[in-house]
């Protein structure tokens, strides 16, 4: 952008027409009183804004002249038309004519906010456009977003051009490199699957270095040859060096474009990481090549000496290794810093961004490869940073990073489109354009094939032909090339305009044509798609085993290969780096297997909670400790939870209060209300204390999660211990869950019948069905497993799971939580026998998830639990009120009740218990119950039906709390 060119958009709207004044924009001509008070150049501020455009706002005497009017029309591009054009010439003079301002009642200070305002508006427009695109699934599934954005940019650019007679808001290299690129690179570096990346590092480096060099030279030379052959018009004054320069900037695969397209294509991970890793790492090569060629061109080919070539080669190492080193240094600093943020959690995310950005700028300052620096920084720091910062900060970092990156990406593509409109900058030469297009495709393919052939000699898993096709075809060019070509100095490179035009065409072609077709191509070639599955503990453990085995075998074989070095590195990391960079508490529990375990638990718990468990959760923990709770200090986990928890938290003590006879009726009401009332627990949380993210919140969350986890554990534990879960019945709980929905729903729908009494028969029937379904559906369900929470495969847990899985009945999980109250069901539960075990079990569990701080409280509560456990029926009294439920029902609940079980005096007939457990029949009931529970937590407490259902015991509980 030329700074010197002010654009004015006159959004003068006739009085009545507000924001969309587009139409009214005509103004310029029609409005009599159109003094252009200020002609302001916008974006002067260092060109950092997206568009340095001058928007002129006339301050009419009337307030009518609003910034909004001026800005909006501009952005929307509709209205500006006539007005802008007409006023331009007068712009400079107008300000002078402004009447001396008296004491203004109302002052319009557009120019003071102009620059940032425009930036914000541009981003807003881009975001809105994104929203619009995604309104239609069809469109976005066919057309990559990047294409749409470029096209949108073209349209907007055309409008701006038409209005202003001047292209504005173009993609400026400065803006691009300093502001738009870093977030994208950071995002990709930080979230890069490091294991995968290093597994394929060899291939990535080859493609990035050799491939880029190859592309640059062959393309450059071939174009030069084309010119020599006379296919390029003589107007294009360029020598071999110029073409090499051009080749170097046009040859690099662009990370932004690749990311934008490949993220939607979902090719298999290896392929993705290779293409994407290449696009990131080739930056160093591109930068070096570009700089070297550029300086050669500026020196003139005659003055280039042999040493210069050597220097060029040397600078490749300096730039790449230097960039990587800078990144690693900052990664180290970042990790080290986050180690000490315990007291100021709030700035943790900020630190991540600041230091990463600092790495970028530092590398840029030293003219090293900034992209490489940020990539390495993100890659290097992640492990330690994630371990150090709080859970919330992690989420914050993740979302902020994603938001920034997506924002930058959006703006880049849009600006690319807009920039292409500016015909003053480019000059067309068909020979050059077509030649370039052909050569980059051809040489890319050729290069990939050659390199792959070599690489495959060394690869365990060779890249097959299809992979090569995708890799060749996925070589998208993008904004980096465009920014580089804009940076060329026209005086030194006379053919710049031609190069710009060619680059634009190439970028557009690769992003639009290739972007559009790559998806069908991938489908057509049946490229292995990525199958995302969440890791299971077993996989994680065994994977580690395999790594160790391979490392050992390499030792035995005496070959120090990849596994050997990886093993070395891990030991080094464990011994020194982690010790140094992780805070002690984090380090203590930091282990990959542990981590997976932890995450699985969290995931379980969260989904659990999300599905309505919040009421339960709060109460759940309490259950065990309830009776003895008074004795337990206020510090007990339950107390903390309750206090901090959502409104749903009931006072456990209250539970004991008697239920009235009306309870039943209430329960019915309750059922009616369930649908409307249910609220996910999360919302509560959010409302609780958003502005202040204290450790408190974190703690609370941890606790809750922990509690839930505990519950689950208990259940599973019990089931295992007691063998309750018939060995065969449980097999694939998750899977079944899926189908169960269907089964469960019918029952759930009519809650009343259930309440009255769950008929055993019904339950049985259900069970049968579910089992059948299980088998048939197993394949289906598996997929679900991946995404979902993985529950322990215990009979009890199964039931719960099923409930969860079922979309409609998501509530199921809650049942477990429900624990507290001593519903009759609990008593009946078979689990009671396991009480003793329970306590033990709990204790072991606590350690896992709970933050150290929490453990104390936890232990206390546990101890209380244990005490409870020993006396089987301590709590029962309260529970007893409820009439015993039909067996079937109870069974279903069993899993839920686990916590309470210990005390319950009832013993189910084993056979019954088994049956219930074995199948999901119970699941349906559970689901219902669950649904209810949430409601109850909030409003329904009054409605509790005491005797109605075992399922409702939870309700009662809640209610008690309220009372």
């Amino acid at each position, binding site marked *: 952008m030329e700074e010197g060119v002010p654009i004015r958009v006159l959004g003068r709207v006739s009085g009545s027409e507000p924001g969309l004044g587009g139409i009214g924009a005509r103004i310029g001509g029609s409005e009599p009183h159109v003094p252009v008070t200020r002609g302001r150049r916008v974006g002067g501020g260092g060109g950092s804004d997206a568009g340095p455009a001058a928007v002129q706002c006339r301050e009419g005497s009337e307030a009518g002249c609003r910034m909004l009017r001026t800005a909006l029309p501009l952005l929307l591009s509709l209205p500006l038309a006539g007005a802008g054009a007409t006023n331009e010439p007068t712009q400079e003079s107008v300000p002078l004519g402004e009447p001396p301002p008296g004491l203004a009642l109302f002052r319009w200070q557009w120019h003071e906010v102009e620059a940032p305002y425009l930036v914000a508006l541009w981003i807003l427009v881009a975001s809105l456009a994104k929203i619009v695109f995604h309104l239609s699934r069809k469109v976005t599934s066919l057309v990559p977003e990047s294409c749409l954005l470029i096209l949108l940019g073209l349209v907007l650019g055309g409008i701006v051009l038409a209005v202003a007679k001047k292209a504005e808001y173009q993609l400026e290299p400065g803006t691009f490199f300093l502001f738009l690129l870093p977030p994208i690179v950071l995002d990709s570096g930080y979230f890069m699957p490091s294991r995968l990346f290093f597994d394929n590092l060899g291939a990535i480096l080859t493609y990035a270095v050799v491939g880029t060099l190859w592309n640059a030279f062959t393309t450059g030379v071939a174009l030069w040859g084309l010119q020599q052959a006379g296919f390029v018009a003589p107007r294009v004054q360029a020598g071999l060096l110029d073409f090499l320069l051009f080749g170097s900037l046009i040859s690099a695969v662009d990370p932004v474009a690749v990311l934008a397209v490949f993220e939607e294509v979902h090719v298999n991970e290896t392929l993705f990481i290779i293409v994407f890793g290449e696009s990131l790492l080739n930056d160093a090569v591109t930068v070096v090549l570009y700089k070297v060629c550029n300086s050669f061109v500026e020196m003139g080919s005659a003055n280039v000496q042999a040493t210069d070539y050597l220097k060029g080669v040397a600078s490749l190492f300096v730039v790449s290794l230097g960039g990587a080193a800078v990144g690693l240094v900052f990664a180290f600093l970042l990790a080290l810093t986050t180690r000490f943020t315990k007291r100021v959690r709030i700035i943790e995310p900020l630190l991540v961004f600041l230091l990463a950005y600092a790495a970028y700028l530092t590398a840029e300052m030293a003219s090293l490869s900034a992209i490489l620096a940020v990539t390495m920084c993100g890659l290097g720091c992640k492990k330690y940073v994630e371990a150090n910062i709080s859970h919330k900060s992690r989420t914050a970092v993740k979302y902020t990073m994603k938001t920034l990156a997506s924002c930058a990406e959006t703006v880049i593509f849009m600006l690319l489109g807009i920039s292409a409109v500016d015909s003053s900058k480019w000059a067309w030469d068909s020979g050059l354009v077509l030649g370039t297009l052909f050569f980059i495709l051809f040489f890319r393919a050729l290069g990939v094939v050659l390199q792959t052939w070599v690489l495959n000699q060394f*690869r*365990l*898993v060779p890249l097959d032909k299809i992979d090569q096709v995708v890799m060749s075809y996925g070589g998208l060019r993008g904004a980096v090339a465009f920014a580089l070509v804009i940076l060329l100095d026209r005086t030194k490179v006379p053919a710049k305009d031609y190069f710009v035009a060619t680059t634009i065409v190439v970028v557009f072609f690769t992003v639009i044509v290739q972007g559009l077709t790559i998806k069908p191509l991938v489908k057509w070639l049946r490229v292995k798609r990525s*199958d995302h*599955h969440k890791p*299971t*503990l*077993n*996989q994680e*453990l*065994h994977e580690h*085993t*395999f790594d*160790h*085995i*391979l*490392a*050992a*075998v*390499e*030792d*035995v*074989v*005496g*070959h120090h*290969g990849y*596994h*050997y070095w990886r*093993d070395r590195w891990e*030991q080094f990391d*464990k011994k020194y780096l982690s010790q140094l960079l992780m805070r002690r508490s984090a*380090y*203590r*529990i*930091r*282990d990959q*297997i*542990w981590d997976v*375990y932890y995450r699985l638990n969290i995931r379980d718990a969260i989904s659990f909670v999300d599905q309505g468990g919040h009421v339960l959760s709060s109460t759940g923990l309490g259950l065990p400790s309830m009776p003895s709770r008074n004795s337990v200090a206020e510090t007990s986990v339950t107390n903390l939870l309750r206090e901090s928890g959502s409104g749903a938290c009931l006072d456990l003590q209250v539970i004991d209060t008697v239920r009235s006879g009306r309870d039943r009726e209430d329960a019915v009401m309750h059922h009616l209300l369930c649908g409307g009332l249910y609220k996910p627990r999360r919302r509560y949380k959010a409302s609780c204390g958003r502005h202040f993210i204290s450790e408190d919140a974190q703690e609370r969350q941890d606790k809750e999660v922990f509690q839930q986890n505990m519950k689950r*554990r208990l259940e*599973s*534990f019990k089931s*295992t211990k007691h063998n309750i*879960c*018939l*060995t*065969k019945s*449980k*097999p*694939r709980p998750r899977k079944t869950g899926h189908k169960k929905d269907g089964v469960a729903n019918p029952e759930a729908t009519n809650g009343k019948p259930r309440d009255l009494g769950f008929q055993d028969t019904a339950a049985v029937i259900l069970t049968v069905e579910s089992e059948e379904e299980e088998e048939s559906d197993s394949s289906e369900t598996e997929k679900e497993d991946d995404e979902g929470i*993985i529950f*322990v*495969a*215990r009979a009890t847990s199964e039931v719960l799971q099923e409930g969860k899985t079922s979309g409609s009945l998501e509530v199921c999980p809650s049942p477990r939580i429900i624990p507290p109250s001593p519903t009759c069901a609990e008593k009946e539960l078979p689990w009671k026998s396991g009480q003793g075990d329970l306590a033990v079990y709990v*204790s*072991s*569990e*606590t*350690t*896992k998830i709970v933050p150290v701080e929490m453990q104390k409280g936890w232990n206390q509560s546990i101890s209380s639990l244990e005490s409870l456990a020993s006396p089987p029926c301590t709590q029962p009294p309260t529970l007893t009120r409820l009439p015993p439920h039909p067996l079937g029902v109870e069974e279903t609940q069993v899993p839920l009740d686990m916590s309470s079980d210990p005390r319950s005096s009832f013993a189910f007939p084993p056979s019954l218990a088994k049956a219930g457990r074995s199948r999901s029949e119970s699941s349906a009931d559970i689901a219902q119950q669950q649904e209810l529970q949430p409601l109850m937590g909030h409003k329904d407490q009054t409605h509790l039906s005491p005797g109605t259902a075992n399922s409702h015991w939870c309700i009662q509980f809640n209610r008690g709390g309220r009372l």
Partner: protein
Amino acid sequence: MGSCSSHVARIPDVDQILRETGFSQASLLRLYHRFQALDREEKGYLSRLDLQRIGALAVNPLGDRIIDSFFPNGSQRVDFAGFARVLAHFRPVDEEDATIRDPKQPEPLNSRMNKLRFAFQLYDLDRDGKISRNEMLQVLRLMVGVQVTDEQLESITDRTVQEADEDGDGAVSFMEFTKSLEKMNIEQKMSIRILK
């Protein structure tokens, strides 16, 4: 190739070994050299001690178990054939293996199942065909390191076993083991390229 094969010929039972393991001659030769290097006293077999001398194995948490796997059935020595047989588990799977294999022939040592079996027997110390909770716990203790407390470790163990355990016997059978890994590309993860 001439010198190579002449070397290969020196290996006892070379044809038999080649057939059984599927190694290329070059790989086998390479292994043989390694074998000889490990066999310092030139006694013609390796003892546990020989393998334990490999420095890096000492720090490998599974090192001992892997060494043990070279000495099946409590024997104290392993000859080259046995040595090669164990390592053959880690030969990459060729496409030919998968396609042209004669169904009647025993599965090659580097088949997916055999790779898994190798891993499985590292867990299954008592060779009863099941990874009991206790065995799992031991492995986890080796792998997880000291930072995790015993209690945590036990809960991880519980979960791990439960996750894989389908028949509810509180232990992981080989079938369950394979099932828990069915999504993993074992052929790739349990292969070493140089062992073609």
